């Protein structure tokens, strides 16, 4: 395990700048909001659209929805940076001309690929969760000031939304990681272009010959689809937020789709490692 640790430390040194970028974007976002508020304050133009607390939605619902929404920016950033990091995972050393140096070290190829996989996916999950936690504190302190804080709904909203983004990130990252074992450059776009080509080819063949060839992108989109707020409108009114949260855990995490996503990601990781291991090192 010491070797895995050494590889992970090396990959951390290489990727830390990219992993920190979402923090800087978030800081910029907060700075922009603070400046806007300060600017409006000094101009005497502080007209907020206040929610009518008496006739508005219940506090628990507000908390649930708001705490899901605070994941939007860090969640989308994590997906973007997962693509950026994983699409260079298994080909960047070749492009940087240091593949021979790394491959001449006595360490298992599975540790090498595993570390890159973890750095690309779990690294971005960790960044997303740190930003989400910060957003959670900021937003819920404001809600608490207005006596609108409901701990149970808030925590569930944030956690369920985080899990939803993490699952999508896992699938997208695994697919891109797999492409990085095949393509030397712009792996995500090259892989996606090929899948798109196959999709159109199969659609044409299906239409012309009345066949039913499976469409790869249709299946992938089903696996990738984000669903943090699925069933929110239909469930909430009749059963209340607590009942919705209970069912949301089933919809988002505890289901067969999650298992398929994990197995599919594991298969892509293993496939990518196998391709990478069997490539000639020139």
């Amino acid at each position, binding site marked *: 395990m*010491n*070797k895995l*640790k*050494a*590889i992970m*430390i*090396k990959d951390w*040194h*290489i990727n830390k700048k990219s992993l920190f970028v979402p923090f800087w974007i978030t800081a910029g976002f907060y700075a922009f909001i603070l400046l806007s508020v300060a600017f409006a304050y000094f101009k005497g133009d502080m007209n907020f659209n206040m929610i009518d607390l008496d006739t508005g939605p219940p506090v628990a619902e507000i908390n649930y929805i708001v705490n899901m929404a605070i994941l939007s920016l860090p969640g989308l950033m994590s997906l973007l940076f997962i693509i950026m990091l994983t699409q260079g995972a298994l080909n960047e*050393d070749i492009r*940087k*001309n*240091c*593949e*021979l*140096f*790394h*491959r*001449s*070290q*006595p*360490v*298992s*190829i599975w540790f090498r690929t595993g570390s890159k996989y973890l750095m690309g996916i779990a690294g971005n999950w960790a960044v997303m969760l740190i930003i989400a936690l910060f957003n959670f504190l900021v937003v819920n302190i404001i809600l608490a000031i207005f006596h609108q804080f409901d701990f149970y709904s808030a925590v569930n909203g944030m956690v369920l939304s985080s899990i939803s983004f993490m699952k999508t990130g896992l699938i997208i990252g695994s697919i891109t990681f797999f492409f990085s074992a095949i393509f030397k450059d712009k792996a995500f776009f090259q892989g996606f272009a090929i899948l798109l080509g196959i999709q159109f080819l199969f659609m044409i063949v299906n239409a012309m010959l009345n066949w039913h060839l499976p469409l790869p992108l249709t299946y992938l989109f089903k696996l990738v689809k984000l669903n943090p707020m699925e069933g929110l409108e239909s469930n909430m009114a009749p059963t209340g937020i607590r009942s919705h949260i209970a069912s949301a855990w089933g919809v988002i995490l505890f289901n067969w789709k999650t298992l398929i996503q994990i197995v599919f990601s594991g298969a892509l990781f293993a496939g990518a490692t196998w391709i990478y*291991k*069997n490539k*000639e*090192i*020139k």
Partner: protein
Amino acid sequence: MNIAEVKNLTKYYGKLKALDEITLNIPQGRIIGLLGKNGAGKSTFMRCLLGFLKHQGEITILGETIKSHKESIHEHIAFIPDVSSLDDRLTVRQTMDYVASLNQSWNAGKAQKLLAGSDLPLNQKVATLSKGMKTKLYLLITLSLDVKILLLDEPTLGLDIVFRKEFFNTILGEFYDESRTIIISTHQVEEVEQILQDIIFIDKGKMILYENVEELKKKYSIFTVPSDKIEELEKHKPKLITKTLGHVSAILDSEIKIENAEESKPSLSDLFMEKVGGSNE
């Protein structure tokens, strides 16, 4: 005792035959030069030895059959392909820590000693180092490994003469003992001529010669005669006759006697020219 045995090693790149039925045994404790023109197959041979390239034929290193790349062999073999192959994104310290953590054969004491004798900036990124500094770093991390075999594939390419000399002197001083084997691939043989014990000539993927350097040099002599006596050389059918000011020279069997000819010992590059020829075609 042989540390490596190669039997009928053949490698194709598409239709191009890069290595052609190479068979040889590499004994322990030797410094072996692998000499060939650009594109002769030297790097391909080294990469096949390490399992980096798929190949036909059999390779056994330290008793282990090499069919594809096995990470475990790097516990015993250090490989310097080209100093530019270090990871530019790491600092000097990170590179050293990385190699030290992965290699059980890392000798921390030796690394400290070599580091103390160098002016390597520990916190500087490898990308910002000069080629000479990169060489020092690569040497430091390689020589700090207690391995049995050192493979050097054109390690001094692009370096100035001072660094090239320093490179080979350091390797000889800090790494070599009679239990360790060094294989150096180069096309600049003059630099390593003094340290080589055995030499392999390789051309167009074929092994032309594999011999002890001293014995090889004893077998041949350079005969120099005035230009008007060129027929004295020609009747021994040399592969190459070199013209100099008013004189002609040829490498011939040292047993041959030519009256009034000046006789001198050939260098490895002379012998290479004699055996392989000068053209790239």
